[in-house]
């Protein structure tokens, strides 16, 4: 998989969340994603950036523009060293039904992305990776 | 320690004997069974070959990185080859017909080099190696560019087909209709739905009727798209009516377990239109018949 460009941004304030949306939008456009696909991944990025800030105590997002033979797209990896999520399955299911910020953001991001991966350990932090292909 | 790269004599040789080389190369191309006289005129071919040689010489004259065609010094050549390949793809050439453009240069070039480097067999061998490696890479590049050109053609044709087969009709002021015909696949449904939503915004239509009379079957994926479109329309502030639902399709939708309570469904487009008019508070009256 050929990563043609990558950049890491820090997420420490709500202005940073806005900045993440803008940069993700620029990259999605550059990768040629359709308007709807752009909107989906930027919205997913917004959810995850907010989670990183509100629940992870701040963190980073790495953006990767990918051009491989098979496909072209954008991958975002959100990482924080916060409290971590004790039961991911529960958060994904629960959050969706109770509308709590963390769960809703996670399940929402999953629904909006082609790929979704999450690693979390209590006391160490959380890493969520999403990708959207053209 | 790697010896300093001896400067290749290829650019200088070509520059000096250009007219001969061009003539030989053209002869090769015209003689090749793969030339499509019906698709391209000889004058056009001559022009393209001439331009390529110029670019080739310029790129080979750079100091370092001559053999790496992805280097910046080769950018002009790459762009030229890309546009030639794309043009040929659009014109209907096959991939090998297109790559022949490059590969047919080998024989004339080697002939030229043999003449120029007659007394120096080692130098000749080196230069032929450089030349063949270069032309192979460029030939492959041409094929890849051709592929991209073909994909563009296919995509454009698909788009045109889609647009032709799914026109959005303005039934009345503020009432749109989208008659879907034929089998729907997921990709087509998505495109169609997005253009309907776009049309709603453009015309400010408060009501949109999706008519699926002409659709024989609807699978679960398509049904989901349909319902998502209805939901999106409501979010945007437009009303939605689905008409022309056959019994089997009704079953599929019910099996999905979706609540159709807030979606108006009618069996015919005519009924749907009547509902739309009522909601838009429009009334049709028959003109009085005098005499």
């Amino acid at each position, binding site marked *: 998989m050929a990563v043609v460009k990558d950049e890491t941004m820090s997420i420490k*304030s*709500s*202005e940073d*969340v*806005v900045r993440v*949306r*803008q940069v993700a*939008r620029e990259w999605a456009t550059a990768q040629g994603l359709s*308007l*709807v696909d*752009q*909107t*989906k991944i*930027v*919205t997913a990025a*917004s*959810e995850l950036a*907010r989670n990183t800030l509100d629940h992870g105590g701040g963190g980073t997002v790495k953006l990767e523009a990918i051009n491989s033979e098979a496909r072209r797209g954008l991958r975002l990896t959100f990482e924080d060293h916060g409290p971590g999520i004790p039961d991911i399955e529960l958060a994904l299911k629960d959050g*969706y039904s109770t*509308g709590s*910020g963390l769960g*809703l*953001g996670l*399940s*929402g991001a999953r*629904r*909006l992305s082609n790929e979704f991966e999450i690693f979390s350990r209590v006391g160490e932090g959380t890493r969520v990776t999403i990708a959207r292909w053209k | 320690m790697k010896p300093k790269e001896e400067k290749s004599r290829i650019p200088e040789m070509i520059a000096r004997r250009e007219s001969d080389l061009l003539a030989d190369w053209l002869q090769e191309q015209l003689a090749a069974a793969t030339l499509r006289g019906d698709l391209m005129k000889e004058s056009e071919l001559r022009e393209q070959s001439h331009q390529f040689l110029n670019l080739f010489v310029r790129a080979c004259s750079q100091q370092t990185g001559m053999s790496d065609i992805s280097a910046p010094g080769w950018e002009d050549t790459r762009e030229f080859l890309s546009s030639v390949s794309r043009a040929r793809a659009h014109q209907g050439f096959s991939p090998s017909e297109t790559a022949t453009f490059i590969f047919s240069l080998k024989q004339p070039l080697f002939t030229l080099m043999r003449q120029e480097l007659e007394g120096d067999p080692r130098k000749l061998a080196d230069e032929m190696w450089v030349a063949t490696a270069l032309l192979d890479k460029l030939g492959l590049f041409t094929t890849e560019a051709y592929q991209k050109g073909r994909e563009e053609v296919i995509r454009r044709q698909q788009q045109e087909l889609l647009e032709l087969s799914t026109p959005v009709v303005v039934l009345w002021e503020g009432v749109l209709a989208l008659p879907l015909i034929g089998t729907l696949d997921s990709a087509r449904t998505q495109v169609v*739905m*997005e253009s309907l*939503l*776009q049309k*709603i*915004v453009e015309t*400010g*239509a*408060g009501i949109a009727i999706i008519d699926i009379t002409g659709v024989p079957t609807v699978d679960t994926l398509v049904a989901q798209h349909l319902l*998502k*479109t209805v*939901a*999106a*329309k*409501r*979010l*945007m*502030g*437009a009303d939605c009516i689905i008409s022309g639902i056959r019994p089997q399709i009704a079953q599929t939708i019910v099996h999905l377990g979706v609540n159709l309570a807030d979606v108006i469904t009618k069996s015919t487009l005519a009924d749907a239109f009547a509902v739309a008019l009522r909601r838009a508070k429009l009334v049709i009256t028959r003109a009085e018949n005098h005499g």
Partner: protein
Amino acid sequence: MERIPILKMGDYLLVTIQVDMHDRLALTLQDDLTEGIARTRARGVLIDISSLEIVDSFIGRMLGNIAAMSRVLDAETVVVGMRPAVAITLVELGLSLPGVRTALNVEQGMRLLQLAGAEQENFNGRGER
């Protein structure tokens, strides 16, 4: 502190969101609107989101909150101008914005507000507010 301007048009309040709001700004808007409705005794609020390219769950919930709070204060809320891509994404997200009425544009939105206001009066059985 930056705020999103709220315009008063007769009995209605009009808000046009043109910037990509960070969370604090959105919360400020929520507060300002609620306070504005109470202070001006507005009958309705029109929120124009035609410039918004992204509406995520936070903004979605903000819109829902505004609708709910204005209803408590006896006013209607209409959101207008949602872009197709945004609508599709919200549906995918599973957000249905309950309690939020929508219209395609400001003109249709105002009509909706006026109609809703008239219905309310008939229901409440009172003429003057």
